């Protein structure tokens, strides 16, 4: 047992002893009734605001109000219209949203690199606690991915047993739109700005409007993580099409984000970081040309919001990613159910769901990574 494991066991035992002092007695049925609050669960939450005995009148007034708001919003262009997404856009190729590698011949997003202005991720209270990620670039690209049910106007994709996802989506804002989104974040009372390091995770508990989430913003020449005060901010960042004016959009229609590069990442699902030996054993399963190719594409971690950084140690072109994925598919590694590009190594002494894995992740314009998966 090494020193860290021994310390961890000691801390774990102390915390469990501490938690033993919690008053755990409960009457389950009484708690269930209290949670239900005496109202029927099958009744939608919003219905509870109706005055007793005036439900129909209240509903009609509410519907009339919603219709007037929606019609006004549509006329002013404040809400998205995704009636005909499958078309060639004027200034960029449309690619149907996908999970996994892009379709052959899909045109990558240009330019290959971009300066990150604002990034947000979190489980948003106002949208049902589903997880949403977005990245805004100085060149106007708005890239996002969502598990929000029905909130985005974009149909959901699945890969096997994966969670439903929109895939990674790209839209384009005007300079005015970029500034409006940036200003919305600043107006939400940003404070406690901290410089963002290469391996920092800016997400945290219970910030306003999210169960778990975080925000990264360019502040002068550097990226900072910041707190905010307004609980409405996460909803505004998650669904900007619901409030940005038409003039903020250079192209509001959605297309898949097609990366130019893929990150090669090795990780595991245990509390022990993957060792260099395990990484080497996984790379050894690849063909010699692939090993040499990957090793020649080593990268240095840099500040950003990277899902697996610093375990994403290499980046390759999309064509090379296709070859690597095909090699892995033919190897004795097992592709994890529900994930298009994650392959698990087989370590005899570990349970199946804790094996180290190798994964290909899309590289974003700022060098961060995102999984094209559910």
């Amino acid at each position, binding site marked *: 047992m090494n020193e860290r494991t021994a310390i961890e066991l000691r801390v774990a035992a102390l915390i469990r002893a501490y938690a033993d002092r919690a*008053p755990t007695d409960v009457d389950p049925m009484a708690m269930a009734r209290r949670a239900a609050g005496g109202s029927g*669960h099958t009744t939608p939450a919003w219905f509870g605001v109706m005055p007793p005995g005036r439900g129909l009148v209240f509903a009609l007034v509410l519907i009339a109000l919603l219709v007037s708001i929606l019609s006004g919003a549509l006329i002013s262009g404040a809400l998205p219209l995704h009636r005909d997404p499958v078309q060639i856009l004027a200034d960029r190729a449309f690619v149907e949203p996908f999970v996994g590698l892009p379709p052959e011949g899909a045109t990558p997003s240009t330019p290959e690199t971009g300066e990150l202005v604002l990034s947000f991720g979190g489980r948003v209270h106002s949208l049902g606690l589903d997880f949403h990620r977005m990245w805004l670039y100085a060149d106007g690209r708005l890239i996002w991915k969502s598990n929000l049910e029905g909130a985005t106007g974009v149909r959901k994709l699945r890969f096997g047993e994966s969670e439903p996802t929109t895939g990674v989506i790209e839209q384009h804002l005007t300079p005015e739109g970029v500034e409006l989104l940036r200003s919305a974040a600043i107006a939400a009372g940003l404070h406690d700005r901290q410089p963002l390091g290469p391996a920092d995770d800016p997400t945290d508990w219970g910030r306003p409007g999210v169960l778990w989430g975080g925000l990264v913003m360019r502040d002068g020449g550097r990226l900072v993580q910041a707190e905010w005060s307004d609980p409405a901010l996460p909803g505004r960042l998650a669904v900007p099409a619901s409030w940005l004016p038409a003039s903020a959009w250079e192209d509001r229609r959605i297309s898949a984000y097609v990366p130019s590069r893929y990150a090669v990442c090795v990780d595991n699902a245990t509390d022990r970081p993957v060792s260099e030996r395990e990484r080497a054993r996984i790379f050894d399963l690849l063909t010699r040309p692939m090993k040499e190719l990957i090793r020649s594409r080593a990268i240095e971690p840099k500040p950003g919001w990277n899902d697996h950084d610093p375990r994403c140690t290499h980046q390759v072109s999309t064509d090379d990613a296709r070859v690597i994925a095909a090699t892995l598919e033919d190897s004795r590694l097992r592709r994890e159910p529900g994930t298009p590009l994650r392959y698990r190594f087989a370590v005899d002494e570990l349970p199946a769901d804790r094996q180290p894995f190798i994964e290909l992740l899309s590289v974003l314009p700022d060098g961060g990574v995102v999984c094209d998966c559910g």
Partner: protein
Amino acid sequence: MRRNGSAVLLLTVEPGGIVSESVKPRAAGLSLEDALGQVRSAGHLPSMTDILLGDGAALEATVRSAATGDEAAFARLVADHHASMIRVAYVISGDADTSLDAVQSAWAIAWRRMRSLRDPSQVRAWLVAIAANEARQAVRRRRRERVVDISEDIARAESGHVEDAADVADLDRALRGLKAEDRSLLALRYAAGLDSSEIARQMGMSPSGVRSRLARLLERLRDDLALEPEIDR
């Protein structure tokens, strides 16, 4: 990821306390018996082991029923998960009343949002995550409202084994020096027994992000508590 099917939860008792291991045989393409055999042959079963077999289909049915307003089904979830939730809330708040309030609030949220839970096998992680968040917010409110008297807690701790009570009292002080967010992470990992991938899945962060943050917290607690490793000799 949806995972239907039976789950095996092994609670293994070691000198450092209970270490939980969960195996999902159907997700691994194994029968229940094969999964148990693998775990046994891999030496994961120490001398004292309690094996709880949970039926994934029954759990899913309970969650689905609760989501449609079945109070009896919801009460079964309360019976199964209330203790985990309140232990987590207690580690975060350090106060019995606050943890009770937080978990009561968490159950009300769970009742309203049960339909948004897509993967019933994740119900425990989902519930303790909500309880943790409510506890964290309760701590924030409490800071604004009053000064907490911890003497009762210390006295209760000291009623047990003297050495352990001193350690737990030290831990109490160390936890109060941490941000509520960090206490949440420690509570989910060590009081609720979620692994880094479960915490990551609930929070939408990476398992490696969870691990690196826990590692920093362990370093800090080691210093705050002046812990010396008891390395096997």
